[in-house]
């Protein structure tokens, strides 16, 4: 049973476009939702995270939108650049992320064309 469903599997945008990656979760006990960025040959790196008490969080060009009632959250990348080309993973965990493990989505491979 996949607890975190991520879409799309892959995404191609032009430089300056705004790619949007969506995730849905099932477990209402989840209360910490990070996004990780992974480049080939590297481990995932934390990009931005949100708790369910807010509906949106911005850090630089990255924004998370969170819909608690729909159990969905999404990542928006403003003014995307070729250097943003990577695989993005959403994840979820309980206890504010300070205990236990993260459950990851299957990933979205983003390609930003110059």
């Amino acid at each position, binding site marked *: 049973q996949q607890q975190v469903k*991520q879409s799309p599997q892959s995404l191609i945008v032009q430089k300056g476009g705004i790619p949007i990656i969506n995730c849905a979760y099932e477990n209402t006990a989840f209360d*910490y939702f*990070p996004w*990780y960025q992974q480049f080939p*040959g*590297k*481990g*995932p*790196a*934390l990009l931005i*995270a949100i708790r369910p008490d807010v509906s949106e969080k911005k850090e630089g060009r990255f924004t998370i939108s969170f819909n608690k009632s729909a159990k969905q959250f999404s990542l928006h990348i403003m003014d995307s650049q070729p250097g943003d080309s990577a695989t993005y*993973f959403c*994840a979820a*965990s309980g206890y*504010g*992320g*300070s205990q*236990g*493990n*993260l*459950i*990851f*989505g*299957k*990933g979205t491979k983003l390609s930003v064309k110059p």
Partner: protein
Amino acid sequence: GAGVSQSPRYKVAKRGQDVALRCDPISGHVSLFWYQQALGQGPEFLTYFQNEAQLDKSGLPSDRFFAERPEGSVSTLKIQRTQQEDSAVYLCASRNSGANVLTFGAGSRLTVL
């Protein structure tokens, strides 16, 4: 060190061989996790340590997989009698006490022939 260090970065094993993968977490980090990442997939949880105690090993796929962290710092993931389906990148991550940021290493890529 400054980050999570994993070794070896690449390992090729013949089917049936035993392998050992090492993780050196960020100094002082209490929690340590092992994940398995198949090609084109997201990381999947294997096991979790808090200091030297293995608190969750529910993700280990079989009894051929064994992990230890005897002194609460370095951890080793051992896979006995490797099978082709064990081919994957094995990621180690660490986290400080009470924090929520998980820092990953670059992974160990295991190929079983």
